[in-house]
């Protein structure tokens, strides 16, 4: 009961900070708020018993990705945006419409409820490092290797594009 209350509180914080990320005029504030969102998400992962991912969320997103963002923002001093756009083009109106449809779909799912086909989990042994590690080196061996190539490509591309003299 306490845990589900915590879930709803953290959810509200997540949504609030995510909205502020999008609506904020200052890019630095947005970045810091995004870090806050990631911390909240990490707590949500803990509540959903995904312990390993909760740690990864902080290490990768808050620790690596957002630092990179902040670094670029500070480097170019592009924090402030003059005005928030007010014109709504046709294309954007259509996209917003589609977004509303999308969200209605998700809500419909809630109203209809879930057919109870699988019993909701009792014991949680899937969220720990052992389970994920075993899956990564057995069933997901091939995708795991592809992920390493993905990182290699990112490395090559980043060095080529961003280095001043090569």
């Amino acid at each position: 009961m306490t845990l589900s209350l915590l879930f709803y509180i953290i959810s509200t914080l997540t949504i609030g900070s995510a909205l502020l990320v999008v609506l904020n005029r200052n890019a630095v504030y947005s970045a810091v708020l995004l870090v806050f969102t990631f911390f909240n998400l990490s707590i949500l992962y803990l509540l959903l018993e995904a312990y390993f991912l909760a740690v990864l969320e902080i290490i990768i997103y808050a620790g690596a990705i957002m630092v990179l963002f902040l670094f670029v923002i500070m480097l170019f001093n592009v924090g402030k945006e003059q005005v928030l756009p007010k014109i709504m083009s046709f294309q954007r109106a259509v996209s917003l419409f589609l977004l509303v449809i999308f969200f209605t779909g998700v809500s419909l799912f809630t109203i209809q409820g879930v057919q109870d086909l699988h019993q909701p989990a009792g014991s949680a042994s899937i969220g720990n490092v052992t389970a994920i590690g075993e899956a990564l080196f057995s069933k997901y061996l091939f995708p795991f290797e592809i992920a390493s190539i993905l990182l290699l490509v990112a490395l090559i591309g980043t060095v080529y594009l961003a280095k001043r003299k090569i």
Partner: protein
Amino acid sequence: MDLSLYFTRQDLWGILPEIVLLVGALIILSIELFARSQRAAMLGVGILSLVIAGGFASKNFGSSFILFQGMVTLNDYSTFFDLLYMTAGIVTMVISYNYLERKGGETRGEYFALILFATMGMMLMTRGNDLVIIFLGMELLSLSLYVLVGFLRHDVFSNESAIKYLLLGAFATGFFLFGAVLVYGTTGTTNFQHIASAITNNEILSDTLLSLGIGLLLVGFAFKVALVPFHMWSPDVYQGAPTSVTAFLCTAPKAAGFGALLKVFLVAFPALHADWQDLLWALALLTMIVGNISALVQTNVKRMLAFSSVTHAGYLCIGILVLNEMGVSAILFYLLVYSVMNLGAFGIISLLEKEEKGVNFKDYEGLASKHPWLSASLALFMLSLAGFPPTAGFVAKYTLFSSAISEGYIWLIIIAILNTLVSVYYYVRLIVNMYMRTSEETLVPFLHPLLSVVIFILAISIMFFGVLPGWLIDTVTQAARIYT
């Protein structure tokens, strides 16, 4: 835990082409480390690794394997696509040989390595039998392409198209992923066969959510293959990217996108195809018409070809709508012919291009009198794109449209044929500029022997498949039969 269960000898043999490409890419990067600007060596290694990988891949013709516990399937369908990507990769490498230097850049090892990585990503997209593999392949391809599009680091056009491609590509990835997640969530698995059996046994959590998931997957794919209304990025990206990269971008990745989309619908959601017909019908119609009308008013040849490729994506959508053996084989045939035509057209454009000149319709005036052979082959590619007999473009359109007519989509085909007639205007306009107008200064092509040979082969194959398409049609029918 016994790891040998999860990585068998068969798995190793199956992914040998990927390993060859990886090793090739690493060798190219190492050449760069020891000897700078060894363009010929890097090109040689690149082409060699594609040829070897193609050799290993083509060994699988006629047999089929399931690798890594159902993560990857190898069969005629995937092998057909493997060879298509490798051909496109080889041609792109030859086109690029001294293109970047003319644009003020430098051909570096990263360029060839990234083409190899992109090829690997595309292979995974059509070999994959699991949403995870499709996702990773698509991203491996996209990441390589973002860098390739922005490869002219000092050129603002290249920068700008890279950033547009990156933002819209990443946006599309978000949609694709959310769709994949909803499919996983409702069926409890990411494996195509298991998804299909969950749907037929009605073991899904919620129909609404599954439909939403498939819809979002479709949006993700529509972005990647540039279907209207998700095509906004393609003209800007095609125009701003180095032309050698555009040649690659509008052929092989588009084939990979359609290949993966087809596979998803054929293997994972065959039971639900009927529910999506109206949407696909509308997508096909919109894509054909919008692409065509936008292409009419362009003055830049690259931009015109970008919109023309949007139109072609619309025609291909008709094949997905049909989705029987005839339809699928028609798509495979069309994709191959489309790739050959566009590689040829962009290849010629790239070798005529010099700094700011060579990409507008006006620049082509009087080309035919100075360079008859080059103009003749460019004209041939244009006629084939427009679908004139006896080129392969005609056969491709004919098989595609007749497959749709036999399923009763008469109105759609009438509109498609009208579109084809309209499209003649902008293709022939280039030919008219080359042959019937004169100008004091014409473009000077930068031909080197290898490139001439490649363009000659492409032109010959367009004629060959137009006159004697039988062998190729047999091959694609065999490949299409796997899933239909």
